[in-house]
């Protein structure tokens, strides 16, 4: 059983790291603010979610697992709000020449 959980942890964290990597590549390579936001929010939601999923079997107690999920929910909330605000500011500034 613990072997299965270990494999789940490794696979989930690797997948999460891949999404973070993809988000960073998008941040560096995309031409304008809106598409970069698109790449970053994918990293936030999916990447962090997979990392949290991978860490869940390793916590000792249910309370710690709930705390991890709460961390993920809070970061989603903050990230989504920040992305909205940045997108609004970018749209107000208008497209770069």
């Amino acid at each position: 059983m613990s072997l299965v959980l270990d494999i789940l942890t490794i696979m989930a964290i690797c997948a999460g790291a891949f999404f973070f990597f993809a988000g960073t590549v998008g941040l560096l390579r995309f031409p304008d603010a809106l598409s970069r936001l698109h790449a970053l929010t994918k990293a936030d939601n999916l990447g962090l979610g997979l990392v949290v999923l991978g860490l869940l079997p390793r916590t000792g107690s249910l309370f710690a697992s709930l705390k991890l999920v709460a961390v993920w929910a809070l970061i989603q909330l903050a990230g989504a709000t920040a992305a909205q605000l940045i997108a609004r500011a970018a749209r107000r500034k208008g497209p770069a020449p």
Partner: protein
Amino acid sequence: MSVLQALDIGLAALVLAVAVWTIFAREAFAAVVGYVAYGLLLSIVWVRLFAVDVALTEAAIGSGVTGVLLIGAAARLREAEMAAADEQPSEPQRFWASFLCVLVTLALAGVVLSLPDPAPTLAPEAAQKLAGTGLGNPITAVLIAFRSFDTMLEKVVLVLAVVGVWSLAPDRYWGGAPGAPRAARPESTLAFLAQLLPPFGILIGIHIFWVGADEPGGAFQGGAILAAMWMITMMARLTEAPPVSSIWLRLALIAGPAVFLATGVAGVAMASGFFAYPAGFAKPLILFIEAFMTLSIAVTLPMLVAGPPRRLPRR
């Protein structure tokens, strides 16, 4: 080379790279964003040094609240940036500055590499006296029990900073309120966050303050989270900062150091001396002091970020 060593080296390289960018970035705003990222990376370095309380404080106050302050200032000073271009130091000045800085760095690195081993430490003494305080977290014990005078003076420093910031107001605004007034139509996204987050944030802040007696946490970290919740409602313009002449605001600001000092003085009468706690009653007293400290910090940090009063006082 083990995985942890690779992580350490990667983290160190990242911290240095972001610090270099903070110093050499062209715009002030870019430098400030770099500083916030640097603060968060530094929190991870603190966790690697097994100082979790310091990591929490660095993330909350060192990088979080300082970042809010710096971003606000950088946004307001954007126009003034171009004017300072003619003051750039000349090449010989830069050369001698970098020579001096390399000298300082090498001297400090030499000190780091020649630290005595085994290192002198106060940990055994702290471990001995920890049982007397009834706490489980040695850092809270050091802050509130062993070096309580330092911590009380630090709270006084916070009050002094608020007095200094408020005194920068023009005369006619004295007694008014800092920051922007409440908006009739707050912007929807930020208002959504400011309505959803504070209930959880307040719960988490109080939890971290309470848990700091036995686990990493404490008054500073919990107070910083509560301060952040108030700041976000002010930033979303759902509430406005109170006028600086309001009594409850001033009482809340001084409550922390006042209760701390009163307990210390009461120790002369009821325990063995100044800032001594009566035996067996230490932990409730420490939590009592920490509660007022948390309140003070939660009120002081937003007032420092809001700045001097900017509106006329209401009659």
